[in-house]
């Protein structure tokens, strides 16, 4: 056979085959990665999307004066003494009255009928009444959370069959709610409270929300941004542009690279020792959390900032110095603005990493049951000093709860966290696309 470009000889065929195989491996690798991602997303979305829906039952509640304000003078202090236990009784009466008015009969005991409402309902009515004492003596129409099991029934988590085995609900209760629903008293709608309400105890999964966690995460991100960005940029500008190249800067460089790989829990131990035990900052506070995450994020920011500074061509510096600019002027007027997109991208990715971090927060008391919204500043607790939790911590907390309704909440919290991360990464990509210059 004559040698020709059109005939593939054995060696070329072998090389082509090996290339084909390599492409195959690559595709397989991508396939595995995509499959893993799809599996992850499907499992989280199927489990968690229902957290964004919530079932409410509307009832007309008579607010009798003889039960809620015996003195009848609407004294706020006296009215505040009436507890949610009393309000729960008022609600039970209202619910029974409603069933009677609708002509719904049931074999359930009064106590079990009351269980179709969330335990949160009494608190909702009480705070409504305390905010507006004039409501006493009147009948108000109010939308109240259905209990977790009823809510689960409308989301497919609870079935008649599982309810029959369940100590916390019964098929009769579900039928009762269905009859209420036929008459238009039950509604499942978008659950804003999931994003705004604070955490709730194990008895009220239906009332649990991410409000405190989102606020806590936000405060921590502020702390990280305002500390890690200036410190990180100053450190990298100095190391990259001004520092002499000697053994000391080499040591510092190696250490920064090492710090970036230190397991995050180590920073938690450090935070506990330094910020809480030594500096006496408040435990469980976003300030301490932010400081710990700052330590954790700094190496990431320094490394990415240095890479961004390095990518600015030396000709820019030379030109600035050539027309008589000082070293500092050349850095601040020319190098830093050109490196800014890279720095910002690195910072946002560092922040995103900090946002999803749980381990260091375990040790500084942020893995907690917190229901009070933390204020950004109070004279007592200082800046970001009030106890709070954070998004990933809330996920961790909810996965440990006994009530199955918290599984859905935990996945819902993961979805929320992922949306935040996606949003932050999208900003990073946008900044890079929009401002990055190539030489």
């Amino acid at each position: 056979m004559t040698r020709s470009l059109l005939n593939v000889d054995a060696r070329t065929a072998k090389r082509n085959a090996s290339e084909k195989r390599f492409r195959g491996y690559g595709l397989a690798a991508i396939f595995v990665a995509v499959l893993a991602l799809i599996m992850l997303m499907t499992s989280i979305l199927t489990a968690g999307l229902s957290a964004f829906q919530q079932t409410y039952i509307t009832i007309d509640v008579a607010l009798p004066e003889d039960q809620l304000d015996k003195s009848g003078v609407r004294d706020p202090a006296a009215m505040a003494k009436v507890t949610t236990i009393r309000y729960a009784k008022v609600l039970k009466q209202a619910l029974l009255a409603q069933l009677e008015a609708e002509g719904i009969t049931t074999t359930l005991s009064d106590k079990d009928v009351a269980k179709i409402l969330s335990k949160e309902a009494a608190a909702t009515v009480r705070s409504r009444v305390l905010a507006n004492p004039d409501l006493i003596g009147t009948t108000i129409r109010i939308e109240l959370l259905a209990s977790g099991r009823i809510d689960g029934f409308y989301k497919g988590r609870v079935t008649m069959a599982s309810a029959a085995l369940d100590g916390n609900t019964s098929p009769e209760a579900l039928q009762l709610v269905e009859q209420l629903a036929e008459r238009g008293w039950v509604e499942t709608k978008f659950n804003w409270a999931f994003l705004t309400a604070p955490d709730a105890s194990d008895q009220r999964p239906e009332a649990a929300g991410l409000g405190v966690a989102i606020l806590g995460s936000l405060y921590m991100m502020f702390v990280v941004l305002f500390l890690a960005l200036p410190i990180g940029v100053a450190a990298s500008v100095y190391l990259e542009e001004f520092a002499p190249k000697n053994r000391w800067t080499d040591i510092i460089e190696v250490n920064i690279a090492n710090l970036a790989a230190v397991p995050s829990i180590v920073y938690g131990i450090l935070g506990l020792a330094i910020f809480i035990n030594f500096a006496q900052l408040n435990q469980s506070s976003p300030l301490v959390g932010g400081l710990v995450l700052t330590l954790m994020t700094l190496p990431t920011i320094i490394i990415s900032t240095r890479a961004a500074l390095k990518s600015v061509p030396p000709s820019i510096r030379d030109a600035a110095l050539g027309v008589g600019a000082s070293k500092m002027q050349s850095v601040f007027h020319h190098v830093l603005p050109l490196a800014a997109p890279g720095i910002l991208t690195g910072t946002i990715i560092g922040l995103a990493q900090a946002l999803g971090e749980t381990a260091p927060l375990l040790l500084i008391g942020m893995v907690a049951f917190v229901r009070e919204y933390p204020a950004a500043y109070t004279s007592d607790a200082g800046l970001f000093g009030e106890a709070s939790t954070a998004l990933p911590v809330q996920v961790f907390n909810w996965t440990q709860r006994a009530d199955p309704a918290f599984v859905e909440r935990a996945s819902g919290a993961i979805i929320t966290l992922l949306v935040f991360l996606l949003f932050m990464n999208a900003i990073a990509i946008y900044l890079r696309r929009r401002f990055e210059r190539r030489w």
Partner: protein
Amino acid sequence: MVLNTRIAAACATVTVIAGAADARDNVQVAGSSTVLPYAAIVAESFGENFDYPTPVVESGGSSAGLKRFCQGVGENTIDVANASRAIKQKEIDACAAAGVTDIIEVRIGYDGIVFASEIASNSFAFSAEDWYKALAAEHYIDGALVANTYTSWNQVNASLPDQPIQAFIPGTKHGTREVFEEKVILAGCEEGGYFHAMLDNGVDEDTAESACMAIRTDGRSVDIDGDYTETLARIAADTNGIGVFGLSFYENNTDKLQVATMNDIIPTTESIASGEYPVSRPLYFYIKAAHLDVIPGLKDYAEFFVSDDMAGEDGPLAEYGLVSDPELAATQDNVANEVTLGN
């Protein structure tokens, strides 16, 4: 000038941050993850009904909580430690060394420990001896310790189903493990006469006890270091598995789990309160007396916790699975009078 204002601003920031160590107005609680749900329920109700902020409740385990409790007195330390066991003398000493001398012990009720399996699988009626025989590493037979060779429950006790032995028990960091070892494994060792056989053959009591309580490590018994949710997941994956749960966890998952009887007694809050069901333990929380006058709401929180509205027989805690304490009234008096340990 610009620089000066910047320095001033920086100083202001530092002052603001330094001001963080001021008075705290919420109660801080940490400790046992078994007590956590109860404490959270109380904290939630407390926040709703009182003018104080909702207490912050952390988990982390009884030992970890008591360790933090004993770090000292001051607003930067926790006020209350939850524990699923009584405080140890060692811990009281550690507390005293750090200046925490006045501790109020509050028993909130009892927690039952139950054995449960997958709802669709076989049902079980255990005795403590069955558990000892199934899970002990070695049995004392004819004067010698012999490795445990049982592989299925009907070999242990002919009345049990023919199902491979597979148990998921709490890991050693859990307070539940101690109760399981003492009230089930050791009790079974004694019931079966193994313990006495050892003593009769001249084995000293401590050695005999630890020989009784050594759990087999051949995979038939798996330590779960996580929470009951993990045990539940393991049972869902392996339907032969039998798990150790708290009563409240089981009561919240009755559609997935079936509970086993112990000496033919079904675990319920009633049978545990009456003492018929043998495997239970008291739950506690500990208050730092020195904080009572400093932290607003601390005493109200403690009193509210043990009030009949909360910890009583019809209260939300009992509804969640706490076995209420028949001597609750005495506990309420102790809290009201701030009776400290040792007094």
